[in-house]
């Protein structure tokens, strides 16, 4: 019965050994997240209690992270604790379901934090289906107290996964470009933060303009465009060590980099004599390979998650459109045929959709289409929306939105792939070019 999952060196997830009730899994709560505009599931998340069922500061903090993650997903609506009837909840006791049904709760989370002798903390929690009066999940995590925020994300991921059947994405990060200074002298630095906007941290100095950061599949490295020495070149930055190297050192400018799904290659544009074509660079052998050969602008390449195909934008037919080709550059097919211009394609980590920026009648839209170009849907529209990036489970997109005006600047937003639940993602200042980390599990 006890199952241990090593997530990292620090946290250990254990399925709680004691079942509080015998459960027969039938007609338990389930959120279908593919439909969009679902009524959020009412969930009661109690502050996790401390030793001897006393209130615990860290327990309340953890519960707040869980609440905030689940609420932001748009799939849950946490119930105000002021209305809770049953008090003194204990993680190892059955709740009084009637008390929770009266306040329209459907799911109930009860947790506890205890101090271990080695200074770490143990976090136990149970998820209850209030209507079926059954336990849906019971887990224990062990971590260091300073990682309470991370623990909250892990708990939220576990609840999200149990109730939606999808992989959670709360334990992930976003790299983006932090923007300061006036519009004509913008300073642009790379920054990294948790997916909910907490713990932002600058990772380049701002001495050179930094643009379009993208995570490696291990999330330990970033490839981006740097104007170091006023020469636009593709760089590789190790987040942990801060070490940097130029990977796009060719005659001509390199830009628009991304990793291949296996992390072995960087795909990017190389410009020579005004023409931009797509190349790959093998990071181990340093062998580069040309994939397109046109007099057009071929840029913004992105691999499919299986690494076998590449989507990119090109103006070879007159204006920006999306094309898909095999990983060796063969079999190029145009996939966008709608009105307007299509740019910045990104392949979903699930493989099922390609997100893009679309320019139409002076407006900038974010949309998705299937890899064969069918089923185009616009998710958001406005003066300027640009540069979508996928959450690791392929259910949410982040992008940046520019406001009109000299003093204005860009900010980050998220929207569900269904087009619902559009929300700003708070950053300390202006922010653009977001990219979401893969899951590190």
């Amino acid at each position, binding site marked *: 019965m006890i199952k241990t999952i090593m997530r990292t060196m620090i946290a250990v997830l254990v399925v709680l050994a004691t079942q509080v009730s015998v459960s027969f899994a039938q007609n338990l709560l389930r959120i279908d997240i593919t439909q969009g505009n679902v009524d959020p599931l009412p969930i009661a998340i109690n502050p996790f209690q401390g030793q001897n069922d006393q209130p615990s500061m860290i327990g309340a903090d953890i519960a707040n992270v869980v609440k905030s993650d689940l609420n932001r997903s748009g799939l849950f609506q946490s119930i105000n604790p002021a209305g809770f009837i049953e008090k003194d909840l204990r993680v190892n006791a059955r709740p009084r379901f009637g008390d929770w049904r009266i306040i329209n709760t459907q799911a109930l989370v009860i947790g506890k934090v205890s101090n271990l002798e080695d200074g770490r903390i143990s976090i136990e929690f149970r998820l209850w289906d209030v209507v079926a009066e059954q336990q849906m999940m019971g887990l224990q995590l062990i971590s260091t107290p300073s990682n309470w925020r991370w623990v909250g994300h892990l708990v939220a991921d576990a609840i999200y996964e149990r109730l939606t059947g999808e992989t959670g994405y709360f334990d992930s990060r976003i790299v983006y470009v932090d923007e300061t200074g006036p519009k004509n002298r913008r*300073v642009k630095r790379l920054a990294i933060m948790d997916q909910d906007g907490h713990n932002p941290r*600058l990772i380049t100095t701002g001495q050179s303009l930094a643009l379009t950061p993208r995570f490696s599949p291990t999330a330990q490295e970033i490839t981006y465009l740097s104007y170091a020495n006023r020469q636009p070149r593709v760089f590789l930055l190790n987040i942990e060590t801060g070490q940097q190297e130029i990977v796009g050192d060719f005659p001509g400018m390199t830009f*628009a980099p991304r990793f291949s799904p296996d992390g072995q290659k960087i795909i990017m544009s190389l410009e020579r004599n005004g023409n931009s074509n797509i190349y790959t660079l093998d990071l181990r052998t340093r062998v580069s390979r040309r994939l397109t050969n046109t007099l057009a602008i071929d*840029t913004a390449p992105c691999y499919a998650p299986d690494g076998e195909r590449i989507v990119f934008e090109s103006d070879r037919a007159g204006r920006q459109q999306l094309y898909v080709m095999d990983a060796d550059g063969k079999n190029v097919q145009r996939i966008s045929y709608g009105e307007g211009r299509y*740019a*910045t394609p990104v392949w979903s980590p699930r493989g099922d959709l390609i997100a893009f920026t679309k320019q139409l009648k002076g407006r900038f839209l974010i949309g998705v289409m299937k890899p064969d170009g069918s089923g185009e849907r616009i998710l958001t529209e406005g003066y300027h929306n640009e540069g979508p990036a996928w959450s690791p489970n392929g259910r949410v997109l982040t992008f940046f939105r*520019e406001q009109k005006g000299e003093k204005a600047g860009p900010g980050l937003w998220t929207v569900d792939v269904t087009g619902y639940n559009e929300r700003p993602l708070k950053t*300390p200042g202006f922010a653009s070019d977001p990219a979401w980390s893969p899951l590190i599990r």
Partner: protein
Amino acid sequence: MRKLFRSSNIFVALGASILLAACAASGTGTSSYGSSKDESAVKELVRNVGDRVFFATDSAALSADARSTIMRQADWLRTNSKSLTIEGHADERGTREYNIALGARRANAVKDYMISLGVDGSRLETVSWGKERPVSLCAEDACWSKNRRSVSVIQ
């Protein structure tokens, strides 16, 4: 690694100090005159010859005006033993990567025309700034048209 991700929350304070340093150090302002110390040559290029040409939306085609400016630049290069960096720029109404490529296309259009006028290509470099360095900041074409430009800068 985990510790590294989680540890710092000094974003705002660090941001402020680096911003000051960066403004003082970078020198990449509204107009970039490179590192030339020859101020009279810079003045002549900017005021008398004309250091920039303008482009239509999503185009690197050289207008008649643009061509006459480039001819004056080519003449100027015949009497001045300087080398130029041609910076290509785009307005803000495009996507980032495409605008970087478009700026390069514009800078190269200027370079190619100068070479056709007899300028030695080894005296000309190009760089694209995409939409990153606008000179006019309003959200109207009156400003955007000034940002769709190439600027020839003495190396």
